[in-house]
């Protein structure tokens, strides 16, 4: 009995001591930092704490979305000292994004991959890339037979190049596989991820027949000066370790009327992007006048990404 009491006392005193030293220590640390006082860091902690209690993106009202965006922008300012602009533009009426890739024109320069990494704030440490370009011999059809790791002068004789990325399927298997409904198809056809709702189970990665999804094994590293500041909540905003991400046809650009970063960067004009529901659009011209095919069409995923030849 006596020993128990002693123990209890001991623990209490220990906890008291620990708490006081922790407070003193953190105070000393934070006040020791130049520029950022105790208030700054506690504000970030408070904001991050509030972030845990937000809803799924699709269930939020516009005011709730604006609130979380304001918090995320403030956190970025406090923690990384960057002024980002997160946007939550919704899908437009009568717009369905489609993409066509000219297999004849692509020369394998990989400017698209470089532009994509920059635009979408992809992890530089692990070299995450949404796009993969496969170098294939004439006569090959499927990218599994191609070489995705080439690094030599391009174009190489007797070869052609085929770019693969997320195809934004109309019947996406990744969406069906997700146990938390963290990924879904938007009305304009983009398959997006709510990063805060993703639990990192990677079922979607396994379900995707096109290798369109990427997993963050570590905290993505992007140098501060290279962060793209125009962001979208469902697109290129900051991701953390253990969540899935994917190509969203640069949702932050396409919903503002811009072409995706890969299309803008392509030096050969092999990439065509546009509205499938506009009968005058370029993508519709390609579908109407060119020989097009889709990858693994027999799977019934109904991708909105066509390959065509001149």
């Amino acid at each position, binding site marked *: 009995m006596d020993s128990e009491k002693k123990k209890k006392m001991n623990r209490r005193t220990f906890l008291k001591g620990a708490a006081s030293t922790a407070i003193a220590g953190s105070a000393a640390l934070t006040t020791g930092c130049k520029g950022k006082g105790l208030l700054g860091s506690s504000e970030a902690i408070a904001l991050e704490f509030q972030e845990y209690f937000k809803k799924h993106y699709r269930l939020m009202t516009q005011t709730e979305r604006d609130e979380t965006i304001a918090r995320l922008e403030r956190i970025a300012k406090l923690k990384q000292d960057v002024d980002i602009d997160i946007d939550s533009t919704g899908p437009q009426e009568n717009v*369905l994004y489609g993409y066509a890739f000219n297999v004849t024109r692509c020369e*394998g320069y990989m400017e698209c991959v470089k532009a994509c990494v920059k635009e979408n704030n992809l992890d530089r440490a692990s070299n995450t890339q949404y796009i993969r370009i496969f170098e294939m011999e004439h006569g090959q059809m499927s990218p599994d037979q191609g070489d995705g*790791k080439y690094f030599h002068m*391009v174009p190489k004789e007797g070869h052609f190049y085929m770019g693969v990325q997320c195809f934004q399927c109309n019947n996406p298997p990744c969406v069906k596989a997700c146990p938390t409904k963290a990924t879904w198809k938007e009305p304009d056809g983009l398959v997006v991820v709510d990063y805060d709702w993703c639990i990192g189970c990677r079922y979607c990665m396994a379900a995707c027949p096109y*290798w369109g999804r990427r997993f963050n094994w570590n905290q993505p590293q992007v140098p501060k000066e290279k962060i793209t500041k125009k962001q979208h909540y469902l697109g290129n905003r900051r991701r953390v370790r253990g969540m899935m991400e994917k190509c969203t046809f640069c949702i932050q650009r396409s919903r503002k009327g811009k072409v995706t970063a890969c299309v803008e960067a392509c*030096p050969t*004009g092999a990439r065509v992007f546009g509205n499938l529901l506009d*009968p005058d659009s370029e*993508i519709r*011209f390609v579908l109407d006048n060119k020989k097009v095919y889709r990858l693994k069409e027999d799977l019934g995923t109904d991708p909105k990404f066509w390959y065509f030849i001149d």
Partner: protein
Amino acid sequence: MNTSKFTKCLYYILPGLLIIFFAYTCFSSQEGVISRIKKATLKVDKTKQVDTAIPIPKNAVKANVQYQGGTFYTISRKSEMKRYKCSSCHNNKKVLIQNAADISHADIKVVHGDKDSPLACNTCHNQDNRDFLTTSKGSKIDFDHVYDMCGQCHFRQKKDWIGGAHGKRVTYWAGERVVENCTSCHDPHSPRFKKRWPATYSVPLN
């Protein structure tokens, strides 16, 4: 007796339900992309596809051909040419010989046309009025509308360029259609893309 009647009833009801369920799943499933595209035949107001206003670049000029959706713009060539107007040198005045090396066109190497019989300067450039290009029949073509000249031989590419399968849009997919000109991507004197190193590389996925 009663129970056997009930089971008999079940034999009819269950397959019936199954058929109804199957039919429901068949017809209620979302329509495919292709059928949606085929249904979308109505003209879309190209300026109202997105909420943001889309500017037309300053160096864009109205093309003198029409695409399936009407008029469109292309990037001006003259604004990119460093020494336009050509007639400021190519006139009857004399040129000082010291400047000749700087201002001659000796750096231009024509790799265009047949290997054995490449194109001459005069095939494209108008001899009488240096500020213009020329067609094979001798009529003048403005530098901004260089696609008319390229299209004489590359008529298939021109058709694709007007439609949208060749070339590309400038920055925006929505709004007024502004496309790159032939000379935005191709060097007219050696139009084939050069062999070079890729911009980056990929690591193995797993």
